[in-house]
């Protein structure tokens, strides 16, 4: 329905009565002017332009800027004068053979594994809470939401407490055969990946829950009534119906994960687990390397934009398929 649709008046006489002699033409004029909606949206749009779009311009200006005589970076506000070669250097550094290739490769591997683990854990949980929990649904939902109210760092701190060499994780694992008590916090990729899963899984659960909750139960029933087995029902009904939700959940979880740096900082301080986010943070923290840092921010944003574009493209396509 759009603002141009004819007014929905079931009884024209009544409408005439209400609007008196001025009639329906006048009434039409009283409908929200087209400008009202952009007007309502404007504070938000302006805010995001000023504090989200403009900052990216500042990043570009820094990445393409110059150094003064003390090797302090000076931003260059004129796009024509940007040092493109310098920005390209940042891109080259994440390619094989570049100085940031290892962190880049590692970041992608970690995020892919962590995301896969997140899905494996979250899908059954979301499915259960959305479709099977029955009376417990409210309680379960509250518990699922709990991590949102609890500081991410507090949750990480909890794990640091547990993973100490003399911590409870080792106490539990100790008696088990073929597990040797370990230095979990001595720069292990596995600890880091589990940390990422733990930190980001709530972001995956919620959209997934929402998507599964929306699926019309009758679809599944119909599929069963047609004698289709549960496995095929899942593959051919439930999974496709939740595909949009899966994509959205994947995007909202994975993309921010690419920029994570504090998880590695807390759980491991080893070059073997350095992620791209750490390199960016490090470069930006060092005066003279700010340009490289800004350049890497652009690299990361470009990479994420490509993923985002793919996401938008596939949701669009999915929407069209539904139609």
């Amino acid at each position, binding site marked *: 329905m759009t603002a141009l649709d004819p007014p929905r008046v079931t009884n024209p006489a009544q409408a005439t009565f209400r609007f008196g002699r001025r009639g329906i033409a006048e009434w039409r004029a009283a409908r929200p002017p087209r400008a009202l909606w952009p007007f309502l949206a404007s504070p938000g749009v302006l805010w995001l332009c000023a504090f989200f779009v403009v900052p990216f311009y500042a990043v570009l200006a820094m990445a393409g800027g110059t*150094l003064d*005589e*003390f*090797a*302090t970076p000076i931003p260059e506000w004129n796009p024509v004068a940007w040092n493109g070669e310098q920005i390209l250097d940042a891109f080259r550094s994440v390619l094989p053979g570049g*100085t*940031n290739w*290892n*962190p880049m490769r*590692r970041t992608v591997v970690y995020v892919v594994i962590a995301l896969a683990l997140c899905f494996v854990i979250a899908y059954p949980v979301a499915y259960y809470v959305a479709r099977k929990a029955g009376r417990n649904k409210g309680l379960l939902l509250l518990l699922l939401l709990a991590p949102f109210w609890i500081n991410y760092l507090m949750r990480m701190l909890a794990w640091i407490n547990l993973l*100490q*060499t003399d911590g409870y994780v080792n106490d539990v694992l100790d008696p088990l055969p073929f597990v040797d008590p370990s*230095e979990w*916090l*001595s*720069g292990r990729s596995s600890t880091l990946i589990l940390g990422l899963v733990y930190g980001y899984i709530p972001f995956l659960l919620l959209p997934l829950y929402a998507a599964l909750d929306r699926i019309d139960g009758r679809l599944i029933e119909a599929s069963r009534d047609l004698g289709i087995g549960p496995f095929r029902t899942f593959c051919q009904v439930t999974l496709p119906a939740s595909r949009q939700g899966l994509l959205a959940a994947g995007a909202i979880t994975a993309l921010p994960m690419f920029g994570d740096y504090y998880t590695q900082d807390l759980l*491991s*301080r*080893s*070059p*073997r*687990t*350095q992620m791209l986010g*750490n*390199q960016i943070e*490090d*470069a*930006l*923290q*060092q*005066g*003279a*390397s*700010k340009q*490289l840092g800004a350049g890497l921010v652009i690299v990361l944003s470009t990479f994420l934009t490509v993923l985002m574009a793919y996401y938008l493209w596939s949701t669009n396509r999915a929407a069209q398929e539904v139609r």
Partner: protein
Amino acid sequence: MARHPRERRSALWTPRPYGGLDRREFLRRTAMTALAVPTAGGLLAACGGDDDPKPAGSAIELARPDNPVRLPTKGSAIADDLPIESGPLKIYNWQDYANPEMLEKFEAEFDVKIEWTSFSGMDEAIQKLGTGAVDFDVFFPTIDRLATLVAQEHLQPLNLNYIPNLKNVWPELQDPFYDKGSQYSIPYVLWSDGIGWRADLVDKTPDDYDNGWDMLWDPAFEGKVWVIDDDRDTLALPIVRMGRVEDVNTDDRALLEQSLEALREIRGVQISAEAYQKVPEGSSPIHHAWSGDMLSAPGYLPDGVDATTLRFWDQPDGRGVIGSDAVSIMAGSKRPVLAHAFLNFILDTDNALLNMAWNGYQAPLNAIDADRLIADEFFPKNLSAAVVQQSDFDAGNQLMQLAPTVEKLWDDIFREFKAG
């Protein structure tokens, strides 16, 4: 065994008693006796008058012991006899780099509040100062950054009339090569680079190796070795190990890359700037560390761990990396007189000893005699190697000012190391 919180607090804030004598007792006693040590040649005029002409062309003149530098005058020092402002005094310093009790003493003496903001690395700090969006009064730079900070007009010239205690300082640091005439800085504390470890977790010592530094490279300690999160100290580590200690201020890319390769050979190496907590805690059994970090480490030992397990080793011939840090006043300080008072305060021998008792870092004051510190066990005997001798300081090599582009080179190569 749990201790009363008050007791625990003091255990955290001052190193524990050794040899049955209370630490505080030592502190007081050492302060007394140390003060009696004659201060030979300690009365050099603070404002020396040599006028080295500054060569044109380079943005920053590189100060070296054989090429002392008088920093350019940017702005003017405050006038004499101004009234002391009210607080708060805003200080920007490393984490845990001053005794809170000393700060409290200053607060009480001057009836002001101190606002203490900490950073975890010099780069991070200078980055933040460079934004121009901060307004600290007192800053604790390392001497290799001093000239850049002055050239960029971040620091203000000192009026030494407010800092009579400068006379307490070792003569060579009253008029140091990096800041002739102490125009912009006073010395803070001394340190040397070495290896700290917990003897109960590690079955070897650097003395078991022909070259003590090789301990860090021993494959037996895979995953147990940590290095300092600082490009200068850590890239200098392999250079010192190669025996090229005089090259710790190199501008030679090849040498730095060689150093990078060497660092990558340390198996499972990790990086932190918190040796003073991580070593006693046991999470980093072997740590390339600053001496003072290890001297303050006993205060962070977990319950039930014997303080004698803490060890420190540095190059025995004293020809390792050694240095002193500085204290300066920010150009934009709104309380310059109070800031001067603070600088004078920390050069007082009693205050310096109070600071040292918690912080572990020694002040280069004439009255503080390294041999006495060792003999009186001001610091535990097993850590006496971490006490900096004046002779070590003269023999050692300092990390000094680099040309801006060279500094960036060090940064870049260290980041490559971090990239793994």
